[in-house]
């Protein structure tokens, strides 16, 4: 929490201030707990996502996948990572929440600071980092449970067991992704019965239910039909008011439509990164210009 302040976060979280205050005055344990939950609630809408990658190198079995990546992800904006296939876009995304740890023979150095915490630090609880990053994969992957449990699962795992509160979260998140009207009468039917577009929105809602700060989307619309993928895009545009959205995309048009910030990668290196207007209309690098013109893909 101290680190958040050190890194010059413009609006430090209420939670950090609150808990600092209380821990200084050594309140009894129960009162600290109470005040923290209260503070957490108010943090919900004004959190500040902060992600900074410096000198990141990733190797998988002697292959140098990511080379000296240095980027910053702006909060409350949509950042699109574009580049030809095999350039390390997905690897970069998976490094953010360290899902890459499960890959055989993976090694990394450098640092990724999430809200001032180095995620590669041995003391960092990786589950906390992952909780901050909602993941939306290429193909929707609902959990093998009912629609209701898909959303409640994460909350239950993080200690929320009150039925009333869970009902409220499920309704809220389903409404946030525009699925509530479609499924409110069959919350107990299996999630696998939904259409693929609905499943993807359910996965988004499931991620939102654990109150992340980032949304990582790995070509999240590529398996969907045009209407569903438009739906997801619209949702991203709405959600960027509250979250930092990082999406890997294969479709340049999609990046053109919704990106606020663009990172162009080629062969494991970040070639150019900046506001979407600049990168698309006035690329500084020759390689970016060629890619945007469609010289290679």
């Amino acid at each position, binding site marked *: 929490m101290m680190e958040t302040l050190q890194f010059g976060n413009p609006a430090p979280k209420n939670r950090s201030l609150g808990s600092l205050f209380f821990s200084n005055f050594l309140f009894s344990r129960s009162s600290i707990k109470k005040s923290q939950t209260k503070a957490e609630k108010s943090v919900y809408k004004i959190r500040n996502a902060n992600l900074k990658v410096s000198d990141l190198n990733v190797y998988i079995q002697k292959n140098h996948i990511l080379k000296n990546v240095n980027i910053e992800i702006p909060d409350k904006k949509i950042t699109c990572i574009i580049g030809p296939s095999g350039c390390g876009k997905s690897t970069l995304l998976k490094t953010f929440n360290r899902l890459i740890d499960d890959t055989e023979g993976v090694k990394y150095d450098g640092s990724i600071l999430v809200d001032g915490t180095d995620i590669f630090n041995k003391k960092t609880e990786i589950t906390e980092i992952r909780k901050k990053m909602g993941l939306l*994969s290429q193909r929707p992957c609902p959990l093998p449970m009912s629609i209701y449990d898909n959303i409640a699962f*994460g909350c239950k795992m993080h200690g929320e067991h009150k039925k009333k509160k869970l009902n409220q979260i499920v309704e809220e998140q389903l409404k946030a992704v525009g699925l509530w009207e479609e499924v409110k009468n069959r919350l107990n039917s299996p999630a696998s019965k939904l259409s693929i577009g609905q499943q993807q929105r359910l996965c988004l809602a499931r991620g939102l239910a654990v109150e992340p700060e980032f949304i990582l989307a790995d070509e999240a619309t590529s398996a969907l039909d045009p209407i569903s993928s438009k739906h997801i895009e619209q949702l991203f545009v709405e959600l960027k008011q509250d979250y930092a959205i990082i999406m890997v995309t294969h479709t340049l048009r999609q990046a053109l439509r919704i990106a606020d910030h663009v990172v162009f990668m080629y062969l494991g290196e970040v070639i150019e990164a900046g506001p979407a207007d600049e990168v698309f209309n006035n690329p500084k690098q020759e390689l970016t210009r060629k890619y945007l013109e469609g010289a290679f893909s």
Partner: protein
Amino acid sequence: MKFKFIEEKIAKSVMIFFALLVVGFVVNIIYTILRRGLPALNWDMISKIPEGGYYNGGGGGILNAIMGSLYIVLGSTFLGLLVSIPIVFYLNVFLNKDSKLAYIARLAFDIMFGIPSIVYGAFAFTIMIYLGMHTSLGGGILVITLLIIPIFIRSMDEVALQLPKDLLDATYALGATKLETIKVVLRQIAPGIATATLLSVGRAIGDAAGVMFTAGFTDSIPTSLSQPAATLPLSVFFQLSSPNADVQDRAYSAALILIFIVLVISVTGRVITTHFSKNKI
């Protein structure tokens, strides 16, 4: 007509022939058991333990063997699940696909699969003698557990290997530890667990060689784990070895009861499976 069509017709008839042949065997076995066992079946058979001289045509029934078999099957299925679910979970969630330990473990389970039950029986018997134990229900349960563990592990593992990587990633992304993914993994491999249980129950209830040395045989129903227990296959065996035709017929009734129990367990198992796998993705 072209040769390839004639070829196809011949191949098709061969397939149908063998399929019918196998079904024919099953029908024949059931028919024989019904023909000889049904007339000898009566309420006494399933509600009484053997009276004196039962194996020479005396009165009574085989309740001792029915209860003994059920105890052993339930006990060993429970123990088997208890041991094999953690193993399968460890192999598939904690270890990498190309881990050496996983390779060695799977090889070991395959070897276990191939070991005949009489070897398990003899092996357990030596240990029991060494420990000064007598033939007992507990010993029978342990041997049958050894026998069915590889079935459990291999059939669950087959299903768990198909676990989508995305599903695990999605669960991790919610902030789950590896252990916390178990709720998701168990739901996804529920059909595998059910199939494994059905296969194991079939093998456990029908095994005679393993329990011969370890559970022994008795005319009474065991009331504790240290007492010997009778089992249906051995009951069939002892009655069938009688020269008395009436007693032989009772052996067929015992077989009929055995098949009926397996049938009931299979059907219940399938109903439960469908219920639990409705959420599978």
